[in-house]
């Protein structure tokens, strides 16, 4: 019996890595759930290989699941790992560079046989587990395969089936290491294999074997305990960005009393929204898997005309195809939500990596003057709020609305204090058609309310028959018009309608730091976590800097300019070549210091800190 006292830590970063076939994502997901229920705050970052299933054991086939969990608020999945779990040599080779100095390695020795070493391109079959090259780390080699087989030798299962459960061994062992209980996972396994009690039994016994192995072996020098985080009281669940977007759409439809119609064509990393929503048929959600992205948005335009809350999502290349139809939705003035879960570009680019380089596309990627509001979600759980907001603005302002997310927050997960439906802001479709006819009885489908919003007159209403279309239309009547002054006015009106949305969104907040001062870091989208952590840490170090995070990019919150004027320098780090920076430059008179990271990876906290400190020291110099 190992009686070591667990070491208490504020937060721990752990990476599970192995072949896609090793059940890495499942292991990570289970562990996440367990520590969440225990009360830790978490942030996760699954990292898939580009291929569906690259050959076993190769470098390109390594799948990873990174998790940071802590007793303090956690905003990112962490820059460097405390613990690295590797199922084979390739997983070690790829990930070692980000293991903290002196960090822990847990390695499955049977993943380091000569074939594995060759696949991982270790020269001449040199085995890192035995050649002292890992001396700087705390290495724990375990023959997980063998132990698993042994645990199940009497189970009657085939070797192939047995090997498939070796991830349970790892999971059990890690539970032990972090002082967590196996109970939640036991419960999940039992449920999952309801109809296959044999499989349930064997998986549970391997899980426990792993836990027990930790408990009984004597190899380990440290055992961690991470205390529950001081999250505000409340009910929590785990949620990823794509799930949150899906729920946001469903909630908005529900609160506005509309049917949700979702038209989409699969594309990484947006497809999960389609998968998620297709499971909500029992809430009346209609999902339409279209033949391409153009058909997807066209179908949603039809559905919107038909009175549904209509949404579509894609990623960069698919959004590029929607440009023409977006213009139609602008001139029709109908509600529509377009989600772009961004990935690395240009073209097919880096389809499984994250990036923020489609901001310009959202702002400008159409012919003619076709203004569309642009929102951006900051974290996985924020995706819920922003999807809900996108719907609210679309419906109440009769306009298409862009929502930007990206691969990092779409796949990443965090605990979410989910709202009660009754607490959600009401959404009120503009369906009042009173006063929409002239005294002579002519219908005026483009007559506007004080916000310049026209009514949504859904087919089926007797006496309100009318035609809409992509040609310029006469004010009020909506009839086709080639009149020069009318075109000028309509162009302005469509723009002003969108600008007026600034009256209907929250004022810009400062996330952290003082209200004014020398430096503010302005971010948008998934850089939230890295910036917030960096700014908080610097504030704790007594370096006053602030963090402003934009969720409403077009139009800007009314008070933004004034807020920014309180700072001497505005640092804008983006995972692109400076798109927000340039856009802000054209809108506001401020001193911008752009920073660009184009690596298909999120910012590290350290990078942001460095960036800020550079500017601080410049100031001193």
């Amino acid at each position, binding site marked *: 019996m190992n009686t070591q006292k667990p070491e208490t830590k504020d937060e721990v970063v752990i990476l599970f890595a192995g072949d896609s076939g090793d059940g890495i994502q499942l292991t990570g997901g289970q562990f996440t759930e367990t520590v969440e229920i225990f009360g830790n705050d978490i942030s996760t970052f699954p990292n898939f290989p580009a291929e569906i299933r690259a050959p076993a054991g190769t470098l390109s086939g390594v799948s990873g699941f990174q998790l940071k969990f802590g007793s303090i608020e956690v905003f990112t999945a962490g820059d460097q790992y405390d613990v690295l779990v590797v199922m084979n040599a390739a997983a070690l080779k790829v990930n070692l560079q980000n293991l903290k100095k002196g960090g822990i390695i847990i390695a499955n020795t049977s993943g380091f046989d000569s074939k594995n070493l060759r696949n991982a391109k270790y020269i001449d079959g040199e085995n890192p587990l035995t050649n002292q090259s890992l001396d700087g780390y705390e290495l724990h080699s375990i023959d997980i395969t063998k132990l698993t087989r042994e645990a199940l030798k009497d189970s009657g299962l085939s070797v192939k089936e047995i090997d498939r459960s070796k991830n349970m061994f790892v999971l059990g062992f890690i539970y032990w290491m972090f002082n967590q209980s196996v109970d939640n996972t036991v419960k999940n396994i039992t449920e999952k294999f309801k109809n296959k009690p044999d499989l349930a039994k064997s998986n549970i016994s391997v899980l426990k074997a792993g836990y027990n192995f930790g408990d009984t072996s004597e190899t380990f020098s440290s055992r961690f305990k991470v205390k529950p985080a001081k999250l505000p009281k409340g009910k929590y669940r785990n949620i990823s960005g794509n799930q949150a977007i899906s729920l946001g759409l469903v909630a908005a439809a529900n609160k506005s009393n509309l049917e949700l119609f979702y038209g989409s064509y699969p594309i990484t990393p947006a497809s999960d929204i389609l998968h998620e929503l297709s499971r909500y048929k029992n809430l009346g959600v209609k999902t339409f898997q279209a033949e391409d992205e153009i058909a997807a948005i066209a179908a949603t335009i039809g559905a919107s005309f038909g009175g549904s809350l209509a949404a579509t999502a894609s990623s960069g290349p698919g959004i590029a195809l929607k440009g023409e139809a977006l213009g139609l939705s602008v001139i029709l003035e109908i509600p529509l939500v377009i989600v772009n879960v961004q990935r690395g570009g240009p073209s097919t680019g880096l389809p499984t990596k994250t990036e923020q380089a489609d901001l310009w596309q959202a702002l400008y990627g159409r012919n003619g003057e076709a203004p569309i509001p642009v929102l951006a979600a900051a974290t996985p759980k924020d995706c819920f709020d922003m999807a809900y907001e996108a719907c609210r603005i679309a419906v109440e302002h009769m306009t298409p609305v862009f929502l930007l997310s990206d691969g990092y927050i779409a796949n990443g997960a965090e605990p979410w204090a989910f709202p009660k439906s009754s607490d959600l802001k009401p959404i009120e479709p503009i*369906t009042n058609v009173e006063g929409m006819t002239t005294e002579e009885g002519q219908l005026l489908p483009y007559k506007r309310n004080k916000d310049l919003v026209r009514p949504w007159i859904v087919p089926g209403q007797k006496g309100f028959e009318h035609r809409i279309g992509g040609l310029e239309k006469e004010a009020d009547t909506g009839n086709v018009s080639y009149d020069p002054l009318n075109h000028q006015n309509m162009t302005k009106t469509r723009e002003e309608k969108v600008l007026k949305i600034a009256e209907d969104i929250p004022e810009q907040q400062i996330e952290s730091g003082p209200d004014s001062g020398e430096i503010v870091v302005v971010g948008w989208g998934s850089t939230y976590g890295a910036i917030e952590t960096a700014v908080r840490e610097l504030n704790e170090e007594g370096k006053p800097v602030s963090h402003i995070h934009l969720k409403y990019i077009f139009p800007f919150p009314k008070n933004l300019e004034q807020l920014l004027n309180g700072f001497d320098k505005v640092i804008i780090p983006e995972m692109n070549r400076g798109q927000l920076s340039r856009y802000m430059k054209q809108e506001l008179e401020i001193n911008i210091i752009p920073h660009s990271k184009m690596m298909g990876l999120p910012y590290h906290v350290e990078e942001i800190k460095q960036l800020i400190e550079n500017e601080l020291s410049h100031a001193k110099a």
Partner: protein
Amino acid sequence: MQKPNNNGNSSTLTPKDYATDQEVRWCPGCGDYSILKQVQTVMPQLGVPKENTVFVSGIGCAARYPYYMNTYGMHSIHGRATAIASGLKASNPELDVWVITGDGDSLAIGGNHLIHLLRRNIDVNVLLFNNEIYGLTKGQYSPTSPQGKVSKSTPLGSVDHPFNPLALALGAEATFVSRAIDRNPKHLRDTIVAAHKHKGTSLIEIYQNCNVFNDLAFDLYSNKDSKEENAIYLEAGKPLLFGKDQNKGIKLDGFKPVIVSLEESGNSTDDLWVHDPEDKIKASILTNFFDYDFNKGDLPRPFGVFYEKQRDTYEDLMKTQIDNAVSSAPIELDELLSGSNHWEI
């Protein structure tokens, strides 16, 4: 959101009620006028309240059509009317949805959405105005123009082999495939009524004369001197007859359609091919009538319903699936928000 209901009835309406106050802006003499008129004429008979009727079009001369129908309507973008109509009908199956499209709109830029609509069998009625030219953009050849067509973009004649729209539709799993012509108003009206009756996507290819850029393209089938010899009208259960006084018929020699004269002895109506719109193979032979090259004159061009088959519509299956899900696993929004695995702090 207010939903349409189909309980109303339109029997008190007249064709005039379907006209709008917008000036009709096609070229004088354009075949589009007749088509507009025939649709307006049959509308009151269809038993659909005017407010539940929606016309969706793409871009082209034909596509201006919705402006002239006093129903709900959308003049959308080039090629996408079929996709827009798909979403409209799937989201709101109570509506009676019509698509108006040209040969360019539906077969060039919109080809993909058309074939996907057909395979999904969404219950919309597609009126494909085929004038074998791009009218609105002033006279380029289209995917239905015959090879060798001299047009604005092909001064030396086009080198493209054209589509056979009805053959394409059959290949795309269409459940209602038909052809009509602007200059035969009665037959056009009948075909529209039949198409509307069909539950599922119905396609009518309508030969339409563009008198400005492709005049007389279908003259053979509308000119009173030639039409009897060159057009054949299909009727279910009836033998294939045509010619002056119906003096000729079509017989199948194996898979090969042959013209027989009923005036010659030995030939009787009993030997003729009897039209069966449920037979897809025979429908294919019919669609290919203009491919056969006979020594003794070409085959006449068929008009009417080539093929009709009942198959579940997309929106019905979707609705059934949703209804079942709602009744078998009902769930409230709050349940969804909390998920099955939440905890308290």
